[in-house]
């Protein structure tokens, strides 16, 4: 099926029974062309607990030190940090450090049921519909929607097991689109990506989400990280030096099945889930408004590595990064 045989998805995440400790340091620096007087920011940088992941530690450092900080849970259950900087400053540096334990949940029978049963329209419980509704509808104004439906249905043949179909869908996106750093911007539309046939992890995830919703499934955009140095003998993952993104599809009776189409793999021991939303703008790692300043591309550095359990209990585990 896939021509990239070296990166065929691992058979299923259910082979990952042991927990793995992952540590991330994510540094973002905005250097403004001019001085900024006041800055207001929101950050989705704190990894969530759930979906086979446990947040053990998280720390957010902002320089200059904010005059006000506040943490709340957003509409999707993610942790959102809000902070204000009142002093004049010419650069804003945000460092997020976290340790999570990954213990991926094995797929159950629900994941292998015919995909049609996972369709939103099949959900009859109002509470479940309320929980999934936000993720169920594609943006119908997207001009290529019909092409995307046809493209998606190639993987979703009638009666096919959901996880199998999803695996195939991810593999086809991986094969048909080229990961090219810098080919697209934060605000590049799915349509542009569809025509360009190249882009970054965000574009891969957007396309998958659109296709899945268009055939009636509930699908989410997921922001997170992937291991910087992969296991011995495997090639370096795409998106490893920056914040990463993928998609999740909802299986009733299981929950979100996370899939990384950019690397053509299940989200398992090598990923850290930060936040789940409808799209990128629900969960950008960092967004802000400041007075003065001026537009500037940020410098971003991400390191993700595996740590041993002993390191954790010796304390200061994050300082050693």
């Amino acid at each position, binding site marked *: 099926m896939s021509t990239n045989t070296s990166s065929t998805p691992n058979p299923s995440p259910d082979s990952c029974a042991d927990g793995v400790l992952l540590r991330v340091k994510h540094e*973002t620096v*905005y250097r*403004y062309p001019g001085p*900024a*007087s*006041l800055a*207001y*920011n*929101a950050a989705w940088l704190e990894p969530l607990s759930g979906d086979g992941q446990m947040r053990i530690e998280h720390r957010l450092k902002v320089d200059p030190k904010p*005059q*006000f900080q*506040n943490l*709340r*849970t*957003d*509409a*999707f259950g993610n942790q959102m940090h*809000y902070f*204000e900087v*009142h002093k004049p400053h010419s650069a804003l540096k945000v460092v997020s450090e976290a340790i999570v334990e990954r213990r991926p949940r094995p797929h159950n029978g629900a994941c292998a049921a015919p995909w049609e049963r996972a369709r939103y329209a099949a959900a009859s419980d*109002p*509470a479940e*519909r*309320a929980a999934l*509704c*936000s993720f169920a*509808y594609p943006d*119908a104004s997207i001009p290529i929607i019909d092409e995307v439906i046809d493209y998606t249905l190639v993987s979703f043949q009638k009666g096919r097991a959901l996880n199998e179909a999803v695996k195939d869908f991810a593999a086809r996106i991986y094969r048909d689109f080229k990961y090219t750093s810098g080919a697209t911007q*934060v605000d590049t539309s799915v349509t542009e990506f569809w025509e360009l046939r190249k882009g970054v992890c965000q574009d891969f995830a957007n396309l998958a989400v659109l296709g899945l919703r268009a055939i009636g499934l509930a699908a989410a955009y997921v922001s997170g990280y992937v291991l910087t140095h992969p296991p011995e003998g495997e090639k370096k993952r795409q998106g490893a030096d920056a914040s990463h993104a993928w998609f999740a599809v909802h299986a009733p009776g299981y929950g979100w099945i996370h899939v990384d189409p950019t690397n053509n793999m299940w989200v398992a021991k090598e990923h850290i889930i930060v936040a789940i939303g409808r799209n990128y*703008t*629900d969960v*950008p*790692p*960092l*967004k*802000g*408004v*400041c*007075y*003065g*300043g*001026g*537009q*500037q591309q*940020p410098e*971003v550095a991400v390191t993700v590595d595996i740590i041993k359990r002993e390191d954790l209990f010796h304390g200061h585990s994050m300082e050693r990064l």
Partner: protein
Amino acid sequence: MSENIAPSTQPSLDLTGLPYSPLATAFDEMLGSGGEARPHWRAFAEYFSRVSRDDLGQLRRDTLRRLKEQGVNYHVYDDPQGMRRTWQLDPLPMVMSEADWNPIEAGLQQRAHLYSRVLADLLGPQTCLKQGVLPPELVLQHPGFLRSMMGSAALPLSLFAADLARGPDGSWWVLADRTQGPSGAGYVLEARMVTKRVLSQNAVDYAIAPLAQFFYHFKRHVAALAPDQQKEPTIVLLSPGIGNEVYFEHAYLAAQLGITLVQGDDLTVRQGKVYLKTVDDLQQVDVIIRRVDDAFCDPLNFRADSMLGVPGLAQAQALGRVGMANPLGGGFLESPAMLPFLPALSKHFLAEELKLPNVATWWCGQEKELKHVLQNLDDLVIKTVDRHALVCFGPKMSARERDALKRRIQAEPWRYVGQELLSFSTTPTLVGSEIQPRHLVLRGFAAGDGEQYDVMPGGLTRVSPDAHTFLVSGQSGGWSKDTWLLKSSGSMRDVLRLSPTKQRRIASAVLTSRAAESLFWLARYLERTESLLRHIRAYVRRLENYIDYGFDTDKAVLEGMLPAVEAFCALGREGLPTVEDLKQYVLDSTRVGGVAFNLRGAINSAYTVRDLWSGDCWRAVEELEELLEYSEKNRSVLALDQFIQPFLTALLAFLGASQESLALNQGGLWLQLGRRLERAQNTLSSTHKICAELNEDNEAGLREMLLEAHDCLSSHRRRYGTELPFYTLWKHLLLEPTNPRSLVYAVSELEPLLSYLNPTPQQGLIGLEKNVLAILTPLRLADAVEWRDLELTQTELAPFLQNLTQQLNQFGLNIEHQYFKHAQPLTRFMR
């Protein structure tokens, strides 16, 4: 007219002369199906029977005149008349009986209560979604549902409104609910003042339920939202500004309620609290009455492209550190798709039946309803769930439009509703000088705390522009009316006796930094224009002399004068400007620094502080604007001097009125500072320019012209006779403390004004006072004898003036820097 209107005791009315015939198809408010006047309309029916067409024409003119005097505007987008279009008020009110009104009042109270509960639930536990009372698509797929407000402290809808219409069977139906920041309540107040006054002259007088009580309750409910209930709350009204269609109402309400009118950049968020930028410091805001749509209120959390909001405002509300009326996040409740679910929601939250029925509405997000709408497209109104999008009238669609609409509905059914086309009732309306039936929609208002609501007696009635349409909005050319609720028992005195005795005090309105800046520049623009007009007038007189007699000395004088004129605004031409050139200079509003340009700037500044002006002041602003428009229209037929004098008169009238009506601590200070500073600068600049031009050929004439341009020629003559030596010229124009137009006079008037800005006078002078002293002292010590001839003028006076000019400019910059808190441009990023 009698206050007692009990129908049974009244003899039947002879209506044979009544010049009014209702439509056959609709319920008429005044006349029953048999043509008889309903009891509560009898007084009007009688009045209509005896009034002449001339009287009706007079009634219309009286109404228009009163509205113009008040400067009541309604901004119609894309209207060439722009901001200045007078609000269309019909002087004939809609009259309601208590029997009609009582169920509406109870229904509005229930709806306001219900919507408050629904909002708190949807931004919180969402029980109505989880229990299947409301389909989740209706909320979660609504483009206006602001997820970032979820989990925030529940706030009530402080002000709620609903649009109602009466169907052919006589019962009232709700067409739409308004939960964001319903507009119209201020217009009702204005409509009442005008309508009562013009009609009382015509002996139509009823006992009408008064409005004051409602605004008292509104203010009380809003004040109760303040997080800290111990201190007097500071309340502001947040408006999108002068571009908004109902900006007049924002300014009017702010003035009526005695609160501060603000725009987004007047506010700033710190530690999740909201502060107002005043000329003194940051002052904490306790409650915001919000008239900016919620999605535009916070560029960090909602629409990043909004220029109307305040970054962090969503956090401030979510943290409960500011009261918000109405709360952010409540906009989507206005979705017409909510209507069919209200009966079930009412049972779910209140365990009550819904009291006021909705006009039949089918939400296409449901299969059966979708089918119904698609099959009956021709007989329905089709609306999108977000109100800023589309409205289609089925009967008016072409086949192609219908097919296109069908496809759109099928692609995203949850975005559409179909609504029954109700035939609205009609009410007598003054059209030209006739009384004709027009369809009406009544907007009712309720103010409350989330549970208990006080309803405005009456409301805003709007009627369609012609008899065959049901569109009543101001944007589509509809007219507004007052609504008179007749009290069958009790006189107005009873109601007034309830009036507020222990209303909680709120902090008085403060002057925002932006308002101070607007006033400062308003005065500068006007003063500059005055000076420019005098310069042009002096120039034109001399020019006409030159044209008539051709003396070379006149030409030399004109050339010497030119730099002083051009200091205001570059002419951009070679040689002497002609009268026609100067006309351009006066009337071309695209010419930077010209008269029309300055006046437009002044008028714009006046609009942004609309809430501060008294009626007389505002009339003066409008006269100035009317004069400007009139002159622009008639530029080809009017002579230049026909422009100059009226402009001078109008702007002096405004300066005078504004100075009289604005107390120093309410903004008058900034007006006067601007005016004095500008006058001093103009005198300095023009004198300095002319000093440089003086030579043997032109000096005598130019000196005279300089005095004339500063309105000092006659006062100089009275004092010194007809001779005009250098010595008396400089003394009179620059150094004479008793000449109100002298430089030293203008500068010395700054001194007492600045002392108001000194918070601790016992500790010495503030920087600005020192600036002025440094300018004033050399002026007071100077001796005009030292500038007694042409040479001394050039060697001694010119550098002296140069130095003063620099100091005065710096003083102006210091004021701006210190008191006007310029917002820097916003940078947004997402990564």
